[in-house]
């Protein structure tokens, strides 16, 4: 057992910490409070972070990226999320899909898409899976209902595929330049055997972004609808085999990250929010007085601080273990368990932080923001579907 970080890992962590404290934190609450969900986004912070490597750090070195390992990625996500969870997620969303490009795209596709991604500070990535009537059904396809799941239709016409349908709740939809889109290419086959993944650039004819969703938390992080009306995608943009979208996690193991990176991502991000909440709560307890004495002197306050820190440190141990296991290609249910656990931890810790502030009569907008950000985990990382999906990995 050795918990020390390498110099390179430490260096990424420090750069992220400095950028987060100096650039992200000052705009975090301000961006959160903007009421128009399209206006919460800020290209300047993306460009600044991109120049430091935070957009492209997961691209392998042989393709011109930084080729950071998963431990480094976890450290950076945590540091960025400590200043703003949603901004951290905007960056790491690009890593998720750059893992996917590196693992599943042909060299020709990599040349066409990884090159521009690396060169353009405003090139963001996204992936479209969910649809208005297909959420849980994509994550956990029901054995007794083969038609369930996404409905977006892709039909081949010569060298082109014609896509028709809608996606919703798609991250980075309104700001991304390239999307992975899962579409049904065999409507008569079950989801896993009848779905194909396509690379769909923003300027694809027949493809447009609909509304941008107005979320209560993670307000910086853009999330929108995608509308496909006879959208024309060249056959050269098919990722992997036709009717083989599922290879992204199944056959590819965790080479890609894919779902497995996504699990680590949410847990590492939650850890940053918890670090922030612990820091805020401890500062409050050591500066705010009640009855002439520091809050820290009170047993009930000490017990709450204890609970916040023990949960946060337990999550940190789990997150770093999962990152290490990713780097050593060890497969288990741990990434999923860690993600599920991070939901419980981020919510309890952020709620305790708000409680300490409210109890002290301090209205702290940032404490409220952390609670709203944390509730996002209920729908991404800790809902019953995500928990059962993890459990099924245990039985494999």
């Amino acid at each position, binding site marked *: 057992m050795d918990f020390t970080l390498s110099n390179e890992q430490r260096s990424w962590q420090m750069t992220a910490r400095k950028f987060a404290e100096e650039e992200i934190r000052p705009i975090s609450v301000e961006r959160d409070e903007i*009421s128009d969900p399209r206006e919460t986004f800020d290209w300047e912070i993306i460009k600044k972070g991109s120049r430091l490597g935070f957009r492209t750090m997961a691209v392998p070195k042989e393709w011109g990226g930084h080729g950071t390992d998963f431990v480094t990625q976890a450290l950076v996500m945590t540091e960025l999320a400590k200043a703003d969870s949603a901004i951290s997620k905007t960056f790491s969303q690009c890593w998720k899909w750059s893992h996917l490009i590196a693992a599943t795209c042909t060299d020709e596709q990599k040349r066409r898409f990884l090159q521009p991604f690396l060169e353009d500070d405003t090139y963001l990535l996204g992936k479209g899976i*969910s649809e208005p*009537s*297909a*959420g*849980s*059904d994509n994550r*956990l396809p*029901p054995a*007794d*209902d083969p038609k*369930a799941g996404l409905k977006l239709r892709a039909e081949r016409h010569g060298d082109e595929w014609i896509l028709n349908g809608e996606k919703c*709740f798609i991250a980075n939809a309104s700001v991304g330049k390239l999307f992975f889109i899962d579409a049904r290419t065999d409507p008569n086959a079950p989801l896993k055997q009848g779905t194909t993944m396509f690379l769909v650039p923003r300027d694809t004819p027949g493809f447009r972004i609909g509304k941008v*969703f*107005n*979320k*209560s*938390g993670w307000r910086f992080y853009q999330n929108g609808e995608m509308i496909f009306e006879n959208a024309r995608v060249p056959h050269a943009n098919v990722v992997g085999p036709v009717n083989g979208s599922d290879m992204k996690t199944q056959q590819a193991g965790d080479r890609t990250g894919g779902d497995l990176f996504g699990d680590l991502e949410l847990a590492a991000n939650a850890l940053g929010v918890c670090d922030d909440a612990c820091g805020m709560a401890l500062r409050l307890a050591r500066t705010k007085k*009640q*009855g*002439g*004495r520091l*809050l820290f*002197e*009170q047993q*009930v306050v000490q017990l709450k601080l204890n609970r916040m820190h023990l949960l946060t440190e337990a999550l940190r141990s789990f997150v770093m273990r999962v990152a290490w296991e990713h780097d050593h290609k060890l497969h288990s249910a741990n990434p999923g368990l860690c993600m599920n656990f991070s939901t419980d931890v981020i919510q309890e810790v952020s709620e305790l932080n*708000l*409680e300490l502030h*409210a*109890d*002290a*009569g301090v*209205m702290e907008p940032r404490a409220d923001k952390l*609670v709203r950000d944390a*509730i*996002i985990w*209920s*729908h991404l990382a800790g*809902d*019953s*579907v995500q928990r*059962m999906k993890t459990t099924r990995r245990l039985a494999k």
Partner: protein
Amino acid sequence: MYNLQLSPEQLEIRDTVRDFVTEEVKPLALRPERLEARTRPLLSDVLDKASQLGLRTLALSEDAGGAGVDTLTSCIVTEELALGDPDVAAVLARTSTLAHALFDRLMTPEQTARFLPPFLADDRYHLALAQLEPDRDAALGIHYHRPETSEADVKTTAVRAGDAWVINGVKDRVANAPLAGLFAVEVNSGPGGTSMLLVPRDAAGLSVRESDHSRHFHHGVCGELVFTDCQVPAENLLGPEREDALGGADAGRDAPLDQALNLGIGRAAYEAALEYAQLRVQGGRRIIEHQAIGTKLAEIAVRLEVARTVIWQAAWACDHPEAFADRSLPDLPLTRIAKVYASEAIYHATKDAAECFGAMGVMRDMPLQKYVHDALVCLHAGASNSDAKLRIAEALAGYRRPARPAALAAE
């Protein structure tokens, strides 16, 4: 005798209010622009209609022109109103409760003759109680189980000058302040003594400012009062029974209307989730038919039913104080107990209800995030649960803090 049967009158009132909420409140309350918890304007027209229905004067005695309902009935009505709109419920509950306390119990006949007729005549005439002050530390906290008094002196002063009181100071977090025609104001009226003065809204030297909704854990509307040499007649001093009638003595047994309101929020979330779970199909069947969602809905129902039981018990106890004396009820601060349990249970219930909606549970154009927000506001409104637990513990131990100096009484 143990009886949970509601009277025909209580059932009728509940049905009337439920219909009112379904027809008049929900269609407005669920409009997209009202779902943004941070910027929602008060539904003034609904308040007017509710007043015409008698809900502003619900607890005021029949002799004085109200409906004279008991605490339990007030709780039932508040729950139903909050199911539609917690702000409307909060404003009406506050005015109705204060109307009973002030007009039925505290005012002299002369005071009633001056203030009751304009109150009854105007649907928009509300009442407010001004006690809190900026930066005044009212928490128990460090003073738990210690003789020091937790409350610093009231800083708003009233000085007698001839036939008048001259008031100076600032009150904040005053519920109903922007709507109130009459304020009961706690003042420091002498060395260490506090009194309660009646201050009409139009008193010279009083200015009222509405507080930013998003910066307080508060339903309804609240505001700040600034008194600058504000003069009221000497006859506006309230009687000495005020501690009891206004919950000033704080035995943890006042009317649990805040929790009844919270219950309405929880029920709104529950009803939405139950309806959606019977419509939404995933995994080849309606989601309520999946164990995971079925269990979640069951847990929500369990929390709400248990919460209602403790809230109703506390309400019934308010209506039957003799039940403490004859040991039918435990000698405990039942309202405080109800608040701690219900506020935590209902917050969790709204979160679970939102989870049933997937990503839609966090969208601002959908009501679920509003229910979660509204329950969070209830969780942190007023005295904290941490403090409430300490006060319950003091009650369990039979700890009695030395009384504060006696207050001035009406002449």
